[in-house]
């Protein structure tokens, strides 16, 4: 601004250059050193015996071999159990849908750049997303089970809270990264904040939101097995019962079925997200 053409001041050219110069270099190497020292101190303090760890790995394989093998595959092919897989799927779907539906307005409120009200709705939106995130899904389940009793309703409610926290944060980050040019243009036409959101923000985040929603379902499906374990119904419930009854061969089969279903969910979600990105 104050430099005028033809009057740019020239200074002596330096003779050498290095990426990290003195004060900065000290910080960088100091930080790395501190992390290594702390790691070593923690290991010594807690008496971590690496040898024992590797020994235990062999032990674990032995336990699996003797107690959980051969898995009782017939058990997981039973109609009752297959129905519970469907329950888990429905739980994750319902929880994911409800969570995403609630996360969108919260994310809008809690995105600083386009928040409809910076003094009231912004902090409320943030609070909503943060409190949903702050409590782990197992704790949400325990809370909802204590209020609603055992079963799918408690499970779906817990998953909804989990999805609000998960998707809400990702959504609002996405909204805060939009190009502000169209936002400015819509404001200049006299549009209100809802109209600005619908016309300037939604078209920019639609594809990313779809991807995040699919990913949320995928994560919710994994969480749904844990939610079941704590009383939310579905596969996790069967797992808990058999663990308590020491039916280890059945437990082995259930764990295998969970791994298989999670892989399937991950595959479907990955495929859908790729399809959405192509449609951009």
């Amino acid at each position, binding site marked *: 601004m104050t430099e005028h053409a033809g009057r740019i001041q020239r200074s002596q050219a330096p003779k050498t250059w290095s990426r990290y110069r003195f004060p900065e270099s000290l910080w960088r190497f100091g930080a790395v050193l501190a992390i290594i020292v702390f790691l070593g101190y923690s290991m010594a303090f807690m008496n971590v015996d690496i040898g024992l760890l590797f020994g235990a790995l062999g032990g674990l394989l032995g336990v699996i071999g003797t107690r959980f093998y051969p898995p009782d595959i017939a058990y997981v092919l039973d109609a009752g159990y297959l129905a519970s897989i469907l329950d888990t799927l429905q739980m994750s779907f319902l929880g994911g849908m409800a969570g995403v539906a609630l996360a969108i307005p919260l994310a809008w409120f809690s995105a600083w750049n386009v928040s409809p009200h910076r003094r009231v709705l912004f902090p409320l939106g943030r609070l909503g997303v943060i409190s949903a995130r702050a409590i782990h899904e197992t704790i949400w389940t325990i809370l909802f089970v204590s209020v609603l009793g055992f079963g799918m309703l408690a499970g779906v409610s817990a998953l909804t809270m989990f999805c609000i926290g998960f998707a809400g944060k990702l959504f609002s980050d996405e909204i805060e990264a939009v190009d502000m040019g*169209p936002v400015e243009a819509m404001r200049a*036409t*006299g549009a209100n904040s809802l*109209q600005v959101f619908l*016309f300037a923000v939604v078209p*920019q985040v639609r594809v990313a939101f779809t991807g995040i929603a699919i990913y949320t379902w995928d994560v919710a499906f994994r969480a749904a097995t844990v939610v079941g374990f704590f009383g939310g119904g579905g596969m996790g419930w069967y797992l808990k019962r058999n663990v308590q009854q020491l039916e280890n061969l059945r437990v082995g089969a259930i764990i295998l079925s969970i791994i298989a279903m999670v892989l399937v969910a991950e595959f479907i979600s990955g495929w859908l997200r790729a399809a959405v990105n192509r449609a951009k």
Partner: protein
Amino acid sequence: MSVLSVKDLRVRYSANGPEILKGISFELQSDDFLAMIGPSGAGKSTLIRCINRLVEPTGGEIVLLGEDVRALRPSELRRLRRNVGMIFQEFNLINRMSVMDNVLSGRLGYTGNLRSLFRHFPKKDIEKALYYLDRVGLTDHVDKRADALSGGQRQRVGIARALMQTPKLLLLDEPTSALDPKISREVMALIMGIAKELGVPALCNIHDVQLAKEFCNRIVGLQDGVKKFDGETATLRDRDLEEIYAMEVL
């Protein structure tokens, strides 16, 4: 008649930051096509955004269409903004929407929330959009996505969008800087023609002095947040430019 009157306008982006505008005053008459010239960083964009409060001024007075802009409450501000069409350097179109939806978005200030949600604009607005799309020569591109158009075509969409507001004032923020010299002239001529036809005054930020002289009847020169020149285009001398740009004019 004065459409816009700015007095001692001051802007700081943060309490301790530098003052971007240091007491600017000028008037815009109802038949003016006023060029705001000055080097990059002089505060032209900030100034034009203060007029519809896309940027909040920190001091001074703005009277637009008889209203004290700084005193307006949010709903009153939106009502005032409807009357001010704005055209941007980078067009600021919604790339993933069609040309038609982009043009219709100029009516948002007059449209309810429910209609906005379903993008269901009144028939009258659609007819108006088709008229202005024809006026700017984009009839064949109505259903294309905005990002499928060339720079000049995109700016024409921007012009049509601004006209949809039935503006009483046009704010043009470097409308031609992203365009090549030939298209720049076409776009300026189009804007000026429409402004004259509708009898709407315009305030135009522009760094191309040649274009400013060619199209505008009055010029205000800005440098470092201070007004250095204000007068009829014919009275602008080389030494005024020298002072505004603080450099030799070839």
